């Protein structure tokens, strides 16, 4: 009880600040909602690949994924967010989303985007999650994790070997200049046909 009071006493501003603080909080919340909306941040909560290509810097990854063996079996989030539990999943998404949108907005994304360490571990876990049965032979798995197989700079990541899975060997912002993304897919039937038919 006492500790709770203590915390409150720290958070609650002195009386004379109350009005400005309420106003400020309101503005921040409003701004946050605004940012949330226009940056399609809510889409970060969805599992559809379409949400990732809200940003054109993701087009090249979308394109290579779309043409890979995994396009029919795994979406971006199957690989790029944790699947151990639901809280972890959304926490990770929120962190990632926040960083991506910040960098995007500040235009500081590199020409060649590289996966970060945290993201890397998540992806690796997901490879293992799906291909676990295949890796049931413990010794194979350990040999891979310990980098005992393959060439010298094998870090024990699946894509040390499976480099083409799923984004291919060549990756940069301009590596798929004319990527076809589903957001732009309409209209499938041009007007002149629509008209004559209906």
């Amino acid at each position: 009880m006492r500790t709770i009071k203590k915390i409150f006493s720290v958070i609650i501003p002195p009386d004379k600040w109350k009005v400005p603080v309420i106003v400020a909080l309101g503005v921040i919340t409003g701004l946050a909602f605004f940012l949330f909306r226009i940056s399609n941040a809510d889409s970060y909560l969805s599992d559809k690949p379409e949400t990732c290509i809200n940003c054109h810097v993701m087009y090249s990854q979308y394109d290579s994924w779309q043409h890979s063996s995994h396009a029919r079996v795994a979406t971006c989030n199957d690989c790029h967010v944790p699947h151990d539990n639901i809280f972890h999943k959304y926490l990770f998404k929120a962190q990632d989303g926040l960083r991506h949108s910040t960098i995007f907005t500040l235009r500081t994304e590199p020409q060649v985007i590289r996966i970060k360490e945290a993201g890397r571990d998540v992806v690796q876990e997901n490879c293992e999650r799906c291909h676990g049965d295949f890796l049931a032979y413990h010794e194979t798995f350990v040999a891979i994790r310990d980098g005992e197989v393959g060439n010298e700079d094998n870090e024990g990541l699946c894509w040390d070997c499976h480099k083409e899975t799923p984004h291919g060997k060549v990756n940069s912002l301009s590596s798929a200049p004319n990527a076809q993304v589903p957001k732009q897919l309409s209209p499938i039937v041009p007007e002149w046909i629509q008209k004559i038919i209906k």
Partner: protein
Amino acid sequence: ASNIIERRTEAKLVQQVVTPINEWEPRNEIWGQNYPREFETYKNTLDTSFASKHGGSANVDMLARYPNLVMLWAGYAFSRDYNQGRGHYWAVNDVRKTLRTDIPQPSTCWSCKSTDVPRMMNKIGIANFYKAPWKELGSEIVNPIGCQDCHDPKSMNLRITRPALVEAFQRQGKDIAKSTHQEMRSLVCAQCHVEYYFKGKEDKYLTFPWDKGFSVEDAEKYYDEIDHVDWLHPISKTPMLKAQHPDYELFKMGIHNERGVSCADCHMPYKSQGNVKFTDHKIQSPLANIAGSCMVCHRVKETELLKNVYDRQDKVLELSGIATNNLVKAHLYAKACWDAGASEEQMKPVLKLIRHSQWRWDFVAASHGGSFHAPLECARILGTSIEKSLEAVGLEMEILAKLGKQPPVIPDISTKDKAQQFIGLDMPKLFQTKQEFINTILPQWDKTAEERQGKMNQDYKK
């Protein structure tokens, strides 16, 4: 925030075009200025050097390879001339030069050959387009299958430009506009690689017989109900059906379709050139590039994948061979029955069996990809075809015996020449007529076209 808004509009500019493309632009060279990689690979469909065991881009004379076909298509233009399809760049050239266009054809025959088709359909109307005699539009339809057929010039989106496909979906109660991106990567092909017929004696309206479904039995029922007859077989007097390349339909019955694989996955693999990835537009047999197509999904040796394809094709072709031999017999025995004085009543069940048997065999044979796309379905269909032709032969033997006749001896039709002679085709004359057409009419068409749109890329005429 303004930053974000700005960046979102920027996204749309990334894919900016160098030269804006006119809405009806039929010339692939013009589109190609914006998309040089796609254009270069597209142009390579001119290459006819690759031949696989049963497919490829080489110019294969199917009547020479399977002389039985001449007999089965007697009385129909296909008995004159039928080749295995080759690259898209050849489409206009090949429809101009085939002996099949010497008999009067409607412009429906242009439908699947050129980027000028949407332009002309828009200009004169779809129904008028089909109705027009084929030769009438000769100077308008000159650019081979290309970008305009599959892409929206503004966004480069995949889109459907052939009304027949949209209409077929509509009659099935489906809205093609709701298709997914992955489905579109097959549907653009389904504009052309499908079974069709010309509806209406005068209208010649291009129609896909899918109202009851995609299976061979569904289409058979469809045709039977409307009493559609493509031609009367002069030997057996059977009211026949002709199947044309039901590649999309058969593909739908196969495992790759069931697993969501699209035509483009195999026939237009993803390709890296330097630091850029793009779609290979040299649409061809995937066997010419197993590593780029199959091996994205199948990590086994190329030789093994090649063997898989040939094994399947060989097994289907074995049954197809049995089917054609028995169909030849069925037609010839039917003639013997008529000659011996069989009645219409006696022959009715026989002719129905022949019609259905040949339809089913043709459905498989006309789809050059089917024996790999859906081998089991092909084998199933051929099994029923074999049953029907042999039932016909059995009935015929019975009729002949009753009329006191021996079954006739099968003539020697072991080569295309012998078979064409047997069915009474005067091939030298047909070739001569065609050559005259090529020498006199084609230059006029090209001249008119050049006046309209400038010099064409003439490579394919060689």
